[in-house]
């Protein structure tokens, strides 16, 4: 009943190389927070929330306006390393409707270069229902590839083969002291991606919002920490 295909050693399971069976597709949960599907040369990234910082700034909370830069740098690194042919941005790529207009010229240029480097799909999110203008890429509401379907917001109840974002999953574990980290969560049938944006927080997977989405006994959180991935069973989860 394990969702793992074991690698050659501990490190294979914990870090690189380990493939996970997601409704029949062999995917990898990358330590950077993107989902990689090597067979299809496909990379999926969720909840970039570009220009979240400047949306705070407009309300007089001057958080550092470098979040877009940091997010794009991390994404560029992942794309450069995994070299996908196709990229799916799984919605909430922009924090609000005006975000595109607030991009610093250098950031806009970098983003356009990224979009141009692959067959790029923008899945619509609740923060960014309209596709970005003039950046390239194909806007869709959702899309299917093989046994998987990609959409922003997870459907209520069981949705076999669904890959979604929106909830910003995070898990908390530990016996004597606790550690909370962003995480992929999956029961082998569907999967939620962690939010990728530099200023995006995480919602505890024990929260009511996750209720009914997964088969509890098969649920694993793939926690991201310090360049590594730690798979943790649901029995270990702690509430906030």
């Amino acid at each position, binding site marked *: 009943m*394990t969702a793992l295909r074991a690698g050659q050693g501990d490190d294979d399971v914990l870090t690189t190389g380990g493939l996970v069976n997601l409704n029949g597709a062999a995917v990898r949960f990358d330590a950077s927070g993107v989902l990689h599907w090597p067979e299809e040369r496909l990379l999926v990234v969720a909840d970039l929330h570009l220009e979240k910082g400047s949306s705070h700034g407009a309300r007089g909370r*001057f958080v550092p306006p470098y979040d877009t830069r940091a997010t794009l740098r991390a994404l560029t690194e992942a794309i450069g390393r995994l070299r996908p042919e196709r990229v799916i941005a799984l919605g909430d790529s922009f924090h609000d409707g005006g975000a595109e207009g607030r991009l610093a010229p250098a950031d806009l240029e970098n983003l356009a270069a990224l979009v141009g480097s692959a067959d790029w799909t923008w899945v619509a999110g609740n923060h960014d229902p309209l596709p970005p203008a003039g950046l390239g890429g194909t806007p869709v509401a959702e899309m299917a590839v093989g046994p998987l379907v990609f959409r922003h917001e997870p459907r209520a109840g069981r949705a076999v083969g669904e890959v979604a974002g929106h909830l910003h999953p995070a898990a908390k574990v530990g016996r004597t002291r606790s550690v909370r980290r962003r995480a992929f969560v999956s029961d082998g049938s569907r999967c939620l991606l962690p939010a990728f944006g530099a200023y995006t927080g995480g919602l505890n997977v024990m929260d009511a919002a996750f209720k009914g989405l997964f088969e509890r006994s098969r649920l694993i959180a793939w926690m991201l920490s310090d360049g590594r991935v730690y798979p943790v069973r649901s029995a270990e989860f702690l509430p906030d």
Partner: protein
Amino acid sequence: MALLLAGRDAETFFEDLKTVILDELHALVTSKRGDLLALGLSRLRAIAPAIRTVGLSATVAEPDELRAWLVPQAPDEPLALSEIVTVKGGARPDIRIFEADETIPWAGHSARYAYQGLLEEIDRRRMTLIFVNTRSQAEMIFSELWRLNDANLPIALHHGSLDVGQRRKVEAAMADGRLRAVVATSTLDLGIDWGDIDLVIHVGAPKGASRLAQRVGRANHRMDEPSTALLVPANRFEVLECQAALDANYIGAQDTPPIRDGALDVLAQHVLGRAVAGPFRADEFYAEVVSAYSYRHLDRERFDRVIDLVATGGYALRAYERYAKIKLTADGTWRLTHPRFAQAYRLNVGTIIESPMLKVRLGGKARGRGPVMGGRLLGEVEEYFCEQMKVGDTFLFAGEVLRFEGMRETEVIVSRARSSDPRIPVYAGGKFPLSTFLAAGVRQMLSDPSSWGKLPAPVRDWLALQQDHSLLPKPDELLVETFPHRGRFFLVLYPFEGRLAHQTLGMLLTRRLERFGLKPLGFIATDYVIGVWCAADVGSAFTLGEPTLSRLLEPDMLGDDLEAWMAESYLLKRMFKACAMIAGLVEKNAIGAQKTGRQVTVSTDLIYDVLREHQPDHILLEAAWADASSGLLDLRRLSDMLSRISGRIVHKRLDRISPLAVPIMLEIGGERVAGEADEDVLRQAADEIIREAMA
């Protein structure tokens, strides 16, 4: 005062002000509260130039610092000092160290050996105050005293985490003389005069001579009668410290910390407050600010960066120009751009950033779907304390053993536990490190056997044994012992510089040992000693000079090693969070929604990471660094120590534990080399899956 000064009518309100009196001035000036006060005073002086400022203090180390703090300073001129009025001291206090028939423990903080004797002391007196250094110590001593209290003497508990109503009840009972003893933490430290107290007991080391004087002063405020106090050391090193404190108090020494330069985040708050009061000119305002003693070193460039921080966040990327909170207008004045920023300022004024507190409420046992709600409020605990607990864990609080049942939003639900042994040990270590002055006293005492006559026999014997088996360092020397124990190699240093400085030194030392291939596995730091354990034979390495000890402890460790360590540590993040809130970058209180502590933590951590990467010279990072180095790292003390001991390090290579090393060896347990702990938690949680996958 900050709120009144930010009012639109501040000038008419304060223009007739004649005198400002500041009580317990020494306790005010060394904190961020003191910085805000200093800036407020400079504002008052601008409004009412003729005001007189009067400071009162009974415990001053450097009177001239306080004198300078009270009056305006002019640039490039010698320090201006206020007049000083000295009142003759009262009768000499009668202070003793508690003497027990039983032997004094090697380590630990419970002082359990003394409880029976303390009860007898309480019984002999009208009213006794028992001071301890931490809340958890208070809880433990209170419950242990009651366990032995066959005569049912009315003994109460008083500390800052208890519900206010409960605290007021205890205070009223004290005033009415209905109690025989109160166990208290520093919440009772300052202020109210309790009149009829005829004995002050201090359990644990007093940590600073000024604190001791303050607390002894609590007994009997009549000047003509001597105060009576009893010091109860909890372990052997504390005996030395108590004796040093005792010597200090008799000679009237004081050791309040020096006044440091004013914090930049506090200045940012003051700048916004100034703009809320009305338009200002930067030149005039700068002159006003640097007239405050704590800000006399502030240069114009930094001042302008703080203005920029308030206006638009102070970023190199000018993203927020159009949202500026204050703007330079055509007539050369800075003005607030929108009244809602005034409202936000009023909600967030102040410098006290609480670590998130959770309410403790009595409820029923958890059945099925979580705890039963709805009982009495018992008080508050720090969030981090509850984070480690799981349902069923028991702990001491408000004098009872409680069972943790779960958390509901900002409340911890507990039930009364049947067992009388709490499972979670609550001692978290004292907040106040050993003062520089007492440390010097302890070092002096160690090196001088002729002064041991005052010490209890077990402690005397202990020091004599140390002299036989190893050696006792001279006051300006640093003793380093190395010895093997159970397959590991130990390195024990005796700097006596306080826990904070030792913690920092321990972190840096393990980094360096690692680099020299000596495989450090962990370290522990107390107020007196640092113990490091390694997988490689450090003793033989030092003997061979690979590396030499003086190379290992070179002051240059405060350069690159410190820099590298800080980059990875959580400490700066915590400091940054407080600075960001005080400076108004994130809001403590927003209208409508009060953010919970957790939400603020997440976002300031993310902000910190991004800022550190993209604008490492940002002024708030500078402020956080200044706070960390003066507060939590105690860098000044560490660097003083490293230069003091340079050329005076004595290495003693032993084949077994020395007598002086016994206390630290008993403390060694769960401590790990920092940074690894979090990854360990994850690794453990993941282990299960690895086994399964490999099967």
